[in-house]
């Protein structure tokens, strides 16, 4: 009896979910027939922040041949007469070239949200530890416990496991900050109207460049010797090995940037494409089948969302882990290599 009434309830709920949509689809005027859904527009960087369906314009900062322009929004830039909008891009009205466009975009805003949230949480917990809570007593509340769990995980499993024991202390803040900030940036993309900042190659390239600088700055003598004068090989081999090693320095952060970028971008595109199937079905077979396919597609998207939340944290972990591995490889003072070079010499 309960089983039957539950089934009826689900059927009624599905009907209430589907019926208004069918009606809405039939009454809505069709704007762009050729493109049912704009896939790349969902992942592209915008000059506005979407909040609750409204577009909040973001400031434009543009340098045109030595002259700075500041505007509150793209519209006010066009209204001032100095710029013309063409193909969603601002072009100076008098035919000059834009030297550099430092406008604040939606992806930059989400990077700031992620970094700001990380800083806020870290300072909040740091204040607690300064008061002695957690050092003299045990950590209190779920928030401090969770924070300590993540921090200890990054320190022990990522930093201590991959960076030489006596040096790892100094890299823990960077690794922890990167881990938490990338996690937040990835997970912000799952919020309604949110944008995944890490689905932008410029963001991930900046992060990878930070890792690259830290890696090279802390490179030991041994690291540089392996790059320019590989020990224990015939000297003519250096002609081949040195260029390869120098390229190898740059491919590591490049792969780091591309990995995070491609994973986040493909996740986002996959969700938009699968949701877009509803509109494609609706276009080909009529509104009823289109909305009916939603019954199948929406749970699939929910499953993909769960997968994406997992992948977001996993990719943050992989980025941090590989950063730690690269830093550890460069910072290591290789004692064990001496035997190899002596054996050959």
């Amino acid at each position, binding site marked *: 009896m309960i089983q039957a009434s539950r089934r009826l309830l689900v059927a009624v709920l599905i009907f209430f979910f589907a019926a208004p949509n069918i009606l809405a689809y039939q009454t809505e005027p069709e704007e762009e027939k050729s493109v049912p859904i704009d896939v790349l527009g969902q992942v592209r960087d915008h000059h506005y922040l979407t909040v609750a369906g409204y577009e909040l314009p973001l400031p434009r900062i543009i340098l045109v041949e030595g002259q700075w322009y500041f505007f509150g929004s793209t519209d006010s830039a066009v209204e001032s007469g100095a710029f013309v909008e063409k193909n969603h891009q601002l072009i100076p009205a008098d035919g000059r070239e834009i030297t550099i466009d430092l406008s604040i975009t939606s992806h930059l805003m989400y990077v700031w949200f992620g970094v700001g949230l990380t800083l806020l949480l870290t300072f909040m917990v740091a204040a607690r530890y300064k008061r002695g809570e957690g050092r003299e007593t045990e950590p209190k509340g779920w928030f401090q416990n969770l924070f300590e769990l993540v921090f200890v995980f990054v320190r022990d499993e990522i930093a201590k496991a991959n960076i030489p024991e006596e040096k790892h202390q100094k890299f823990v803040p960077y690794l922890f900050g990167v881990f938490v900030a990338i996690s937040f940036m990835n997970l912000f993309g799952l919020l309604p109207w949110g944008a995944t900042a890490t689905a932008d190659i410029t963001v991930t390239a900046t992060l990878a460049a930070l890792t690259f600088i830290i890696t090279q700055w802390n490179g030991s003598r041994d690291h540089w010797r392996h790059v320019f004068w590989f020990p224990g090989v015939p000297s003519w081999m250096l002609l081949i090995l040195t260029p390869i090693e120098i390229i190898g320095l740059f491919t590591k952060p490049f792969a780091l940037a591309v990995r995070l970028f*491609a*994973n986040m971008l493909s996740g986002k595109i996959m969700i938009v494409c699968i949701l877009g199937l509803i509109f494609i079905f609706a276009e080909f077979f009529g509104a009823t089948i289109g909305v009916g396919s939603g019954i199948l597609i929406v749970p699939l998207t929910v499953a993909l969302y769960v997968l994406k939340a997992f992948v977001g944290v996993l990719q943050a972990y992989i980025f941090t882990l*590989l950063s730690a591995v690269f830093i550890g490889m460069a910072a290591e003072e290789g004692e064990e290599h001496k035997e190899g070079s002596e054996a050959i010499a």
Partner: protein
Amino acid sequence: MGLLAAGIGAGIIAIGAGFGIGMIGKSATESIARQPEASADIRGAMILTAALIEGVALIGAIVCILLVFFA
């Protein structure tokens, strides 16, 4: 032609990456079955190696995307 090349390339990438990650999964599950107490270390090494393979595969995928848009 660019589209065709990108499609074929993406397929070959999928074969290579699938083979590589499959090998990792095979050896990792075998080692965990052989020595269950070391499963945490094995899992870490597995994720690290899979991430390295994924990096190569994704660079190939980026080449395919470039072919679609610029060839």
